[in-house]
């Protein structure tokens, strides 16, 4: 049986300045998600995580083009669909949660209106059934007294509540996949945990697949079953969450884990030297090589291909090959 959502060697570039500048925002991303599974997409700002989210639902800005690769939802090819067909997918089969709750809601329309929209367009709910459905959704995301609050406007709600409403909107169409792009980054720390628990509960109840984009490894540890680490538009390592934390295979992942401050010690903070690369001017060979502690000659020359390791981990690095051969 094919996985629920599968992305295969996706490449999408932004073409600027009349074609002279090419930004390789997504440069070889492959992963798959099953129903009920949570896939975490981790990386620094600008590594291509948000672009990947937009690419999956074919909502990249007009200056970008998907150059190659495949995206399949339950085996159906998404790249071949027209925009009209994609509108049937968006909200109905793949829903999205954005980062900024304040900016996500239309300030002029009531909560009821905005939550009802996907149910209205995708599931043909009308009238009393629609009201009932909205009430259910709001209760599911734990909004108190939903009947009264339905008529409210976004500015009358707190940030945490707004983000929960965004969650309700995501569920309203009855999707199979929910893409959450840094949903807790703009929330107070105290609210973040509540929200994450809510998402987990909702997932268990509905069986959706969750793609969770974040730059916070702590959240990854709590929420995800499988993780992909992105750097410079590529997934450089993909493993189960336990495997990633206990046995990171890519130097970048190792560096990220090392840079998490540890309580109880007074060791100086480890900082990855250098800067993330300019995606329009990537270095030759491996993109991480200028900052890598274990860089070898081969890394500077040849871009590493995907290495599938025995414990269901994949990584884009020449090291495992090197280790295997030197171990004799």
């Amino acid at each position, binding site marked *: 049986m094919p996985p629920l959502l599968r992305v295969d060697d996706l490449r999408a570039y932004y073409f600027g300045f009349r074609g002279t500048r090419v930004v390789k925002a997504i440069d070889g991303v492959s992963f798959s998600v099953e129903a009920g599974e949570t896939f975490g997409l981790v990386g620094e700002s600008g590594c291509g995580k948000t672009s990947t989210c937009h690419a999956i*639902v074919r*909502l990249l800005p007009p200056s970008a083009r998907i150059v190659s690769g495949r995206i399949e939802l339950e085996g159906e090819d998404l790249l071949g669909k027209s*925009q009209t067909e994609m*509108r*049937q*997918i*968006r*909200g*109905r089969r793949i*829903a*999205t949660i*954005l980062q*900024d709750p304040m*900016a*996500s*809601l*239309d*300030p*002029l*329309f009531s909560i009821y209106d905005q939550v009802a*929209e*996907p149910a209205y*367009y*995708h599931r043909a709910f009308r009238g009393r059934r629609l009201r009932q459905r909205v009430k259910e959704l709001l209760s599911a995301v734990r909004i108190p007294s939903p009947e009264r609050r339905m008529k409210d*406007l976004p*500015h*009358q709600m707190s940030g945490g509540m707004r983000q929960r409403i*965004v969650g309700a*909107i995501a569920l309203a*169409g009855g999707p199979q996949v929910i893409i959450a792009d840094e949903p807790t980054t703009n929330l107070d720390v105290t609210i973040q945990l509540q929200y994450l628990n809510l998402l987990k509960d909702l997932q268990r109840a509905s069986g959706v697949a969750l793609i969770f984009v974040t730059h916070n490894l702590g959240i990854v540890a709590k929420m995800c079953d499988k993780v992909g680490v992105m750097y410079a538009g590529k997934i450089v390592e993909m493993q189960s969450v336990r495997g990633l934390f206990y046995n990171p295979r890519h130097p970048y992942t190792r560096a990220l884990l090392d840079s998490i401050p540890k309580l109880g010690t007074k060791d100086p903070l480890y900082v990855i030297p250098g800067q993330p690369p300019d995606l329009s001017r990537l270095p030759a060979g491996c993109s991480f090589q200028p900052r890598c502690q274990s860089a070898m000659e081969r890394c500077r020359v040849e871009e590493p291909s995907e290495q599938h390791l025995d414990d269901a981990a994949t990584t884009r690095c020449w090291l495992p090959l090197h280790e295997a051969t030197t171990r004799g």
Partner: protein
Amino acid sequence: MRKYVLLRGFYSLVTLWLLVTIIFAMVRLTGDPVAMKGEIGADATYLERIKHDWGLDQPVYWQYTGFIGNLLKGDFGHSFEKSLPVRDIYFERLPNSLKLGFAAFVISLALGVPFGMLSALKVNTWWDNAGKMIALLGLSMPGFFVGLVLIIIFGVQLGWLPVLGKGSSAFVWSNPATWAPFWFRDWPHLAMPAFALGWYFSGAMLRITRSGMLDVLGSDYIKLVRLKGVPERMVVAKHALKNSLIPVLTFAGLNLLIMVNVAVVIEVIFNWPGVGQLLYDGLSNRDFPMVQGVVLMSGLMIVMLNFVIDVLYGYVDPRIRLSR
């Protein structure tokens, strides 16, 4: 909402007071009102008499308090030439200017807003560039030039539209029977001046609508609406339109006041008996109190208009309407 209205009202009063003070000060600082009257080589005693009549030989603070006092009583000066209070003449002419202004406003909205939205929806295409160019052209041609061109084409060469005057309908304050028909009669006379006046604004409206629409189309909540899979025409018609209308309306309201400027010249060209022409008459007849009076009245009207617009804006924006 109530607090908002009260605050706005207070602010309007302060602005009004500052406005009249500025007029008072600027007039006395930049020149001599009497000299305007006496420029045709009148003799000194005549000038002295005028000075005395107008109270200009008194100390400044006395003049100022008298000035403010008069204004509070509703006395905006007496026309030298016509020996009538400026306020009365102003109100008699005001409906004509309002009719012209309103027609021009409607024209500018009808031309500017739809094309502005079209430009934004088809941004950076041929439509957009054409729209931007036309808007720029509209903003660059002085109103009186457009008026003259229209006269040449439609009035003289083709003879389709009457050139002068406003036609026979009149708005008489004391006779309510004249109130309603006034707005709907004499279209041919209204056509050219209203178009000449509205043309300048349509350019501005086009740009503002376009830019407001682009802002809205790029916002996060529109992105989310698209991500919800809502059909594209609803994205535009339901969400984008309503949200972009607020800045457009605000701008439209604020710019009505600029229309007053161009209206002066248009009224002169087309011999339209409105307030602008009153100003011009005052100038030609060297009737200073008339000129000052009209300026004061216009200032008052504008401040009141701004206040009304602020209140309307507060009503439309639910964030303000629902607050205490």
